[in-house]
């Protein structure tokens, strides 16, 4: 197991491994998202309070959940990069950031669009919304920090530190609805309790879970592809990378 892990961490092996895995992830992602969105938009009944407006949930919740998961993954990769000085983990940190920022922005935008019909305003300064915005800024900071260094390894390790320190914001986003009274929906789906006895009807729930899975797979595929690009760029002077490009 350990040796396998070590081998995978070598750039050329990783590159080939990702080449095989990414198309599969991508294919399943498209399938799941397709099914989930179809189920959500056409099969699920309209909400008795919100009418059709609630259907944005099929984008909002996966995007929001990913925004948090990606940051957590980045922090984990960052920890590995700093402790074991593993090149691949550094690459993982910097290639995840723009994707995470996009999902965060998507969660914010869909949330705002949803807020207008339900709360009567695009934006309110409450803890969930504010901390999610702070998350976006943290992503932005990581992207900017990476670019500010001309030595990619030093830049990636600086990003790893920031990812670790910023991790404290993740529980704040997640638990903000319980810690402070908020306009925002409490955790009803993405929690242990929510999975044991769901608070929304099964017709609405299954497309959500399917599209959630699809989003995660989609992220996995994009992440692998971005890491491949980054690895190739960093190793552009190595023989294997040049052979790869020529081939």
């Amino acid at each position, binding site marked *: 197991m350990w040796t396998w892990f070590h081998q995978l961490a070598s750039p050329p092996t990783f590159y080939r491994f990702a080449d095989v895995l990414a198309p599969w992830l991508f294919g399943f992602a498209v399938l799941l998202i397709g099914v989930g969105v179809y189920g959500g938009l056409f099969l699920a009944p309209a909400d008795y309070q919100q009418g059709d407006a609630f259907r944005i949930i099929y984008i909002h919740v996966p995007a929001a959940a990913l925004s948090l998961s990606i940051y957590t993954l980045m922090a984990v990769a960052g920890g590995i990069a700093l402790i074991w000085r593993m090149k691949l983990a550094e690459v993982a940190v910097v290639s995840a950031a723009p994707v995470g920022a996009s999902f965060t922005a998507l969660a914010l935008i869909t949330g705002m669009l949803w807020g207008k019909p339900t709360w009567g305003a695009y934006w309110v300064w409450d803890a969930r919304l504010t901390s999610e915005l702070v998350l976006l800024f943290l992503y*932005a900071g990581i992207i900017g920090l990476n670019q500010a260094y001309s030595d990619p390894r030093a830049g990636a390790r*600086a990003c790893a530190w920031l990812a670790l320190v910023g991790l404290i914001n993740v529980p704040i986003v997640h638990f903000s609805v319980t810690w402070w009274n908020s306009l925002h929906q409490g955790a009803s789906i993405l929690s242990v309790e929510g999975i044991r006895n769901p608070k929304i009807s099964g017709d609405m729930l299954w497309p959500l879970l399917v599209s959630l899975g699809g989003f995660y797979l989609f992220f996995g595929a994009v992440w692998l592809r971005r890491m491949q690009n980054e690895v190739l760029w960093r190793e552009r002077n190595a023989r294997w990378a040049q052979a790869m490009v020529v081939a």
Partner: protein
Amino acid sequence: MSAAAAVFRRELLLAARRPAEWAQPLVFYAIVALLFPLGIEAHDPALKVFAPAVVWVGALLAALLGVERIFRGDLDDGTLEQLLLADAPAPLLVAAKLAAHWLITALPLVVAAPVLGIALGLEPLAVKVLTLSLLLGTPTLMFTGGFAAALTVGAQRAGILLPILVLPLMTPAVIFGGGAVRAAAAGLPFDAPLYFLGALTALTVTLLPFAAAGALRNAIE
């Protein structure tokens, strides 16, 4: 321990070489506080609503402006290499440096806060809470600022990056600090946000020096 004391004393010595140093955040602070009311009519009732925010944001900006240079000079002249090679835990030395900076640039702000609060029309209780919240909260500002400075000091083109890194990290302090003052001004209980602020400071002051030292080591490599 004596190494940390040496670092601490050196910062004070450097500040003493330039007596203006500790006075400057104050002046800056006063200017910021003055600039805001400039944007609106005098005696607008809105002024009072904004007072806690103005004072806290002023403190934040003052911390922000000074913190940039904390490690820059040491990196340029080679002192940083020596500090990281010294026979003392680097996080301790970083903490000593940041503590000295807090003493020089932030403590004057805390001391001056009552004057500013009264000038902005806060009640005595709110003024007290304001001062207390700054005393509890400015170390957090200083240490997060120090961490961000450590992250960016090795970057070739940091531009305006430091404030971008720092502001999200400092936001909680501003929320709790401003919240406590607002609560006090409105006659509501204000101890919860103060406790939060204290906990935040305890957390950042103990943990961030480790992250900052790691980032500095990264910068000299």
